[in-house]
């Protein structure tokens, strides 16, 4: 294996990992606040089309990314209102958000079908970004660096800031947090909006970087993998990063197996691999029993204060 090949492989893995890392980080924060939002896939799709649309209209990918974040966050607010204000079932509402996001993105995408934007690639000079060696560090879209920066930032926020402490407290025991005087609803709104924005940015990575065009259902179930990632990581940021790369490598295997005509196994085997491995990984983590210990105690439960 040549160095070039290894570097190409790393670049591929980093690219495939970024969307699930972003969406997973967002969902981790949401779940830490005690809310289970199964609408990640839908929010990613809304992010994908809004990021793409804004980029087409403004010719500015930076504004496009902001548009993706805004789109994802706006979609998440539908979920938030139902779940927080009307105490609707979180599982069902999350599913509804995914179905809605899928339909809405298709509808919005109609006028953008067939359009292409310049991919949102590295901002470093070509000498570095396209250098066969140095591109392993400099050759990525700014979204990749953003995702990597968000990992320690999220960890620091949750562990060391007062706001993070309050967010965890709300997820741990919402009634106690309420009786001490924290606004459970406000904290959860903020967490859900953050989760939506992160999923949106994760989604726009597909439409602005990987294939700089819009296609229906282009996130292909990655939102669900992001959800599995949070469980897999046991609600820990560091393990989320590791898990995201694990899945990134699996998805890269599929690409390489297809491209290399590595055909003693059918290509469908490799395509099914990341999903099957997700189930295996979840079983492995869940069977150890300790994984749930770090799960927020109020996860998925409605907040019903007596006052």
């Amino acid at each position, binding site marked *: 294996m040549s160095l070039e090949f290894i570097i190409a492989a790393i670049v591929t893995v980093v690219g495939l990992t970024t969307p699930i890392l972003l969406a997973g980080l967002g969902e981790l924060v949401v779940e830490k606040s005690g809310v289970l939002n199964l609408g990640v896939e839908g929010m990613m799709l809304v992010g994908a089309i809004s990021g793409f649309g804004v980029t087409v209209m403004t010719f500015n990918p930076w504004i496009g990314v902001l548009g993706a974040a805004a789109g994802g966050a706006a979609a998440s607010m539908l979920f938030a209102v139902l779940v927080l204000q009307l105490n609707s079932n979180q599982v069902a509402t999350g599913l509804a958000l995914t179905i809605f996001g899928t339909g809405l993105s298709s509808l919005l995408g109609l006028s953008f079908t067939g359009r292409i934007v310049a991919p949102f690639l590295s901002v470093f000079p070509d000498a570095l970004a396209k250098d066969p060696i140095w591109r392993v560090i400099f050759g990525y879209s700014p979204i990749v660096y953003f995702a990597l920066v968000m990992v320690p930032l999220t960890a620091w926020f949750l562990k060391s800031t007062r706001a993070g402490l309050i967010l965890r407290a709300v997820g*741990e025991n919402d009634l106690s947090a309420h009786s001490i005087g924290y606004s459970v609803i406000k904290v959860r709104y903020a967490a859900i909006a953050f989760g939506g924005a992160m999923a949106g940015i994760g989604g726009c990575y597909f439409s602005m970087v990987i294939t700089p065009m819009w296609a229906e259902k282009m996130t292909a179930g990655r939102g669900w993998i992001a959800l599995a990632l949070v469980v897999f990581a046991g609600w820990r940021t560091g393990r989320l990063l590791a898990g995201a790369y694990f899945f990134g490598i699996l998805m890269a295997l599929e690409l390489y197996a297809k491209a290399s005509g590595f055909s003693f196994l059918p290509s469908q085997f490799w395509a099914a691999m990341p999903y099957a491995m997700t189930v295996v990984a979840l079983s492995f983590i869940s069977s150890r029993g300790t994984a749930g210990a*770090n799960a927020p105690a109020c996860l998925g439960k409605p907040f019903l204060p007596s*006052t």
Partner: protein
Amino acid sequence: MPDPAPAAVARLELTGITKRFPGVLANDHVGFSVRPGEIHALLGENGAGKSTLVKMIYGIMQPDEGEIRWNGRRLTVANPKAARKLGIGMVFQHFSLFEAMTVLENIALGMDAKIPARDLESRILAVMGQYGLKLEPHRIVSTLSVGERQRIEIVRALLLNPQLLIMDEPTSVLTPQEVDQLFVVLRKLAAEGCSILYISHKLHEIKALCDTATILRGGKLVDTCDPKVETSRSMAEKMIGGSLKDIQRGAGRGFGPEKLRVTRLSMAADGPFGTALKDISFTVRASEIFGIAGVAGNGQNALLLALSGEEPNHDPGSVTVNAVEVGQMQARDRRAQGVASVPEERNGHAAVPVFSLADNAILTARDRLGMVRAGLIDPRAARTYAGEVIEAFSVKATGPGAMAESLSGGNLQKYIMGREILQKPQVLVVSQPTWGVDAGAAASIHQALVDLAATGSAIVVISQDLDELLSLCDTLAVINGGRLSRPMKVSEAKIDEIGLLMGGIHGETAAAEIEKVAHAAQA
């Protein structure tokens, strides 16, 4: 006791406080005042409106009418944060703690000002030293005992230098010795000028601790009196609004043959926060009421599950009923053998909150009363039985169609007790039969248990309320850390010894401890 100067201005003064809930007047023009440095009892039974009143003082709820004066100034307490800013601290009955977090994090969450973790830790250590409250700041709360958890709440409140500390039923989860330690802390605080609003329904504690007592009944203020002058009985009658009814026992009670035998019963802990049962043995005869005392979280829940069969044992002989080995049987098969149980948690364990009373009758009575035929449920049989229970136990409900969660705690408890008792069980195991129940309902539940025993059933009562066990039971044992003490006759039991057993000191050691205490008292 320091006698606080008759200050012209009260620390807290309430006038005409009124709070309505749908269908209930929780507080009806309540007014009283608390002086600086006074320990003021707020006395009343469950449902009298004590909790609602203090929630308004602490800003969790807003009164519909009336005014609150704080150091002479009329104001609205918008939320708990505002209350803490004024200098009002509160220790909740059901702790507002975060299980998976450290002591330090829990305390930080209760502080409104941003204090760096290091400073906070040193201030915590200072407060703990000052009042003799021992705690390790970096322990995870889920590993602490109930008494230690309460200390977190107290330290959290004290760090704010409160002028008024509200304590909501603080002793319900403590051993008698821990109660004494708590009173030392509270007296010290009062001597420093902090007012204390002490909510309880335990009269002897109020007589021992408080300067003034305000008594509530049905949301109305009944009296404000001096507990040192009143007798326990006179306060109790003001609280209940009538004369106390004693339990009626038939004459010439004797015990029949052995009904329930538990032999070297051990169970692994259920989950990371559960308690394992270790080597538990006892027997209960026909017509005997066997009490199990203990501080919350010492294995009571596990014991109930092990007896009811919700957690079957691998050893068939660990539990026998009428000499039949039922240890390995599931709950359903044990019920066929005549074992009925009433767990502590009414909503969500003994009953399904969102089911009607009739549907809840099916839950435990379907087999013994033949409500299922060929896999199909006979809803009419369920309705009829639910109606019978409602009638026999005077349950206040709209009928068999009422949802379990729509009933008050006392009425649901009466319904559940009735559902089990009318099935005429051989053995009945009940946990916390009168937890959160008003005095009238409690009296009728106690009477029903005594009556059931008189028909020849064996009854096990698990309770944290020592007074209840002493008045109800024939025999008593104490559970601590998953172990059961040797049983003693209630007529011969010594309260000191029970207290020490509850605190985890066993057998001869307990006797030695009692002697030591006695010597120390003489010296």
